[in-house]
């Protein structure tokens, strides 16, 4: 089947679903009520065009909207764009915008805002979108409700870059001609979303209220959302237990507390809503230095690590062993036709001997994100010791962790990275030679370089045909699993804890980072 036919969605599709939730479910939701959620840590700002960290996205996803949304299979759904088409070559994409959409200040949302957001504002401030738009030659408003993106060459994952966090729509009438970073309007974000910022008491809470002029009738359902700032993980657990908060996002309480809290009367749990991000954890291996520059040494690490134990013990079942560089939620993932690395200490010892490892002590940098990650590091250290690799842990905080990875000052280091639905968007950056640069903990930090891999990722990005991409990415995964640039550990299934009186809190593949427009309180 040809992809371009698939994406010729019409307005008919919008009639069936709204915000990914079947309409009959929305209609069943009760109107009114308040949701009390936890946000951790307090976001630095809510202007999604400037700040893109987790807490900002979770709150600002209610204030701003993107052109498209994505379901749990990363299939695009309409949002501010109601339909989209592309030419045969996959080099021209045309989006029809929803009529009658207003900004929170009452001004109409038009194609000029789209052009301004993508081409002017975000190209300046949004590092990830800047990379995603490298293939885009021009963005033009054909009429007030039509936008055309012209590409220099076909870009396979193009239709996957329009989610609210990746490309939020920002008001041109407020930002045009100003210094975006210092514009005072950043403190009072104006979007098109179902909720508006009411009040932010720093250190305490952020309150959003329903946007009564929202472009979908009878939506949102709740009147108000409070995001409470509770800095201590144990206190957040107690806050859920005592009923002060109803909604706790993934990672905000330690995993050993999640299982206990989920069993409380009236509590519920879901691991849905992370499919687009596909959080993937691994151990960076500094390929620049001996013995880590030996393929056999890296393969030994892969064999030594007990992924099942990490997932079961440290992550209490909220993680699943990774099979390779691609998270199983992203496109073209393949775990069947590639090399496998079951836990095998004997194989690891043999490979270490062949690699000529002499028992040097290696520095391991844990991820300073709380108890669960500390336990993960302990298990891996134990595993590597069993295989005969000597490990010394480096103690650090978040700033120090960033610094050490930015400067490549490590031997082994933990991380987890979002993969954004498509290998060209979230995987290539960690393995291609062009992404070897100091100053970022998210690029090719390990220093792996293979011209064949560079070529394959380039071909995969520039190919529009999904079948051809599948073949290219299978070959990519095969080579990476043979050469093991990093030791893949697990996929994180972040649990969202909530009270069962809430419904529809997760309505798309970005979960709580999307809006709570369809959520209701019984």
């Amino acid at each position, binding site marked *: 089947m040809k992809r371009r036919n698939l994406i010729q969605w019409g307005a008919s599709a919008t009639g069936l679903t709204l915000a990914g939730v079947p309409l009959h479910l929305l209609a069943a939701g009760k109107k009114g009520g308040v949701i009390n959620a936890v946000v951790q840590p307090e976001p630095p700002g809510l202007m999604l065009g400037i700040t893109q960290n987790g807490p900002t996205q979770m709150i600002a996803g209610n204030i701003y909207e993107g052109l498209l949304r994505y379901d749990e299979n990363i299939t695009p759904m309409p949002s501010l764009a109601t339909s989209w088409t592309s030419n045969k070559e996959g080099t021209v994409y045309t989006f029809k915008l929803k009529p009658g959409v207003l900004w929170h200040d009452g001004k109409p949302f038009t194609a000029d805002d789209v052009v301004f957001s993508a081409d002017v504002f975000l190209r300046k401030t949004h590092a990830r979108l800047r990379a995603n738009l490298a293939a885009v030659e021009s963005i033009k408003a054909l009429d007030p409700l039509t936008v055309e993106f012209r590409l220099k060459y076909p870009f396979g994952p193009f239709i996957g870059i329009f989610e609210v966090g990746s490309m939020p729509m920002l008001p041109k009438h407020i930002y045009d001609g100003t210094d975006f970073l210092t514009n005072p309007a950043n403190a009072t974000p104006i979007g098109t979303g179902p909720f508006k910022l009411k009040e932010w008491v720093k250190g305490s809470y952020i309150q959003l209220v329903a946007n009564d002029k929202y472009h979908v009738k009878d939506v949102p359902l709740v009147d*108000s959302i409070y995001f409470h700032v509770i800095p*201590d993980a144990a206190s957040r657990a107690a806050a859920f237990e005592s009923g002060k908060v109803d909604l706790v996002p993934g990672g905000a309480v330690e995993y050993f507390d999640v299982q206990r809290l989920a069993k409380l009367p009236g509590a519920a749990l879901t691991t849905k809503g992370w499919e687009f991000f596909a959080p993937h954890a691994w151990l960076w291996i500094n390929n620049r230095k001996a013995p880590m520059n030996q393929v056999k040494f890296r393969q030994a690490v892969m064999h030594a690590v007990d992924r099942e134990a990490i997932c079961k013990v440290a992550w209490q079942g909220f993680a699943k062993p990774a099979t390779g560089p691609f998270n199983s939620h992203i496109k073209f993932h393949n775990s069947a036709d590639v090399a496998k690395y079951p836990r095998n200490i004997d194989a690891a010892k043999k490979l270490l001997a062949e690699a000529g490892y002499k028992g040097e002590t290696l520095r391991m940098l844990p991820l300073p994100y709380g108890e669960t990650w500390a336990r993960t590091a302990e298990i891996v250290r134990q595993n590597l010791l069993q295989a005969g690799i000597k490990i010394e842990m480096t103690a650090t905080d*978040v700033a120090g962790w960033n610094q050490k990875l930015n400067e490549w000052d490590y031997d082994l280091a933990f991380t987890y990275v979002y993969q954004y639905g498509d290998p060209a968007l979230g995987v290539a950056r960690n393995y291609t030679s062009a992404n070897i640069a100091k100053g970022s903990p*998210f690029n090719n930090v390990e220093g792996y370089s293979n011209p064949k891999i560079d070529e394959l990722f380039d071909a995969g990005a520039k190919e529009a045909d999904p079948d051809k991409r599948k073949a290219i990415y299978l070959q990519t995964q095969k080579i990476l699993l043979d050469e093991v640039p990093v030791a893949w550990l697990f996929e994180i299934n972040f649990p969202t804890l909530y009270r069962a009186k809430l419904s529809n809190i997760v309505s798309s593949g970005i979960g709580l980072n999307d809006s709570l427009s369809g959520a209701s309180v019984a």
Partner: protein
Amino acid sequence: MLTRVLQGLAAILLIAAVNFVLVRAAPGDPVSVLAGEAGASDAQFVAQLRTQFELDRPITTQLANYLGRVARFDLGYSYRQQQPVLKLIVERLPATLLLTGSAFALSLLFGVTLGALSARRAGTWVDSGITVVALVFYATPLYWLALMAVLIFTVQLDWLPGFGFSTVGAGLRGWALAADIARHLVLPALTLALFYMAVYARMTRAAMLEVAQMDFVKTARAKGVRPGRILRAHVLRNALLPVITLAGIQAGGMIGGAVLTETVFAWPGIGRLMFDALLQRDYSLLLGTFLVTAAMAVLFNLLTDLVYTVVDPRIELAS
């Protein structure tokens, strides 16, 4: 007196300079933290932030600029929080002062009372009881005590709120709001007070027993002064000096000393602001909170010395 004030000001500037250097010695900077949180970054993004945060200038220039601003009472701008540092601190100041001030008063009042009681009944079961309780609170980690308070009084019994400054979204005003804040204050203030209460009790007891052996007390007793009056006017007053010294130290640390309590109870105070600023390497905000803390310490040092002269007229303030 004037010399003391000038010395204090010089100390504050020196502290500011030393803090500046110390803070910069920590690995990482605010840009690496922000870029790290964004989940993606490139050279342009990092360079843009460095310029915006004025981190691209030589460190000596930055230090000179900083000290110059401090001398003009300008604490700078927090790029992370996107607000002036002074505004952030002033916003959080009332919550912190309310918490530490209540804890200070409670601990001093109960500490000295229990200590005096303990000294008067030295060797009895009352004395032993007070000593045991005081030692338990002294030895218990504050973090654990705070969490237990939340688990028992908020989660299990549901008597008192365990998080925040007031009920969010209740729309209370006037006395209703004051009562609401007072209810939120109980657990954190008591938790924070217990540790110092134990210290004051132990110190008052020891000092009073020591003073009670002195000749002037024996003289007073021989003259036939009533025991109650001996205890208050002769013993307690002379025993208070070490307590005042300690109270001065506690008061000086009131602004920044409640990090753990504020964290567990989600109390929106300065201690948390400082701790977050440290983790995020928010230099200007961190230095701002350090500076205010240092100023408070210097101020209370001076006040403590003044109080000495009132309690014990034999002490003079060195000029």
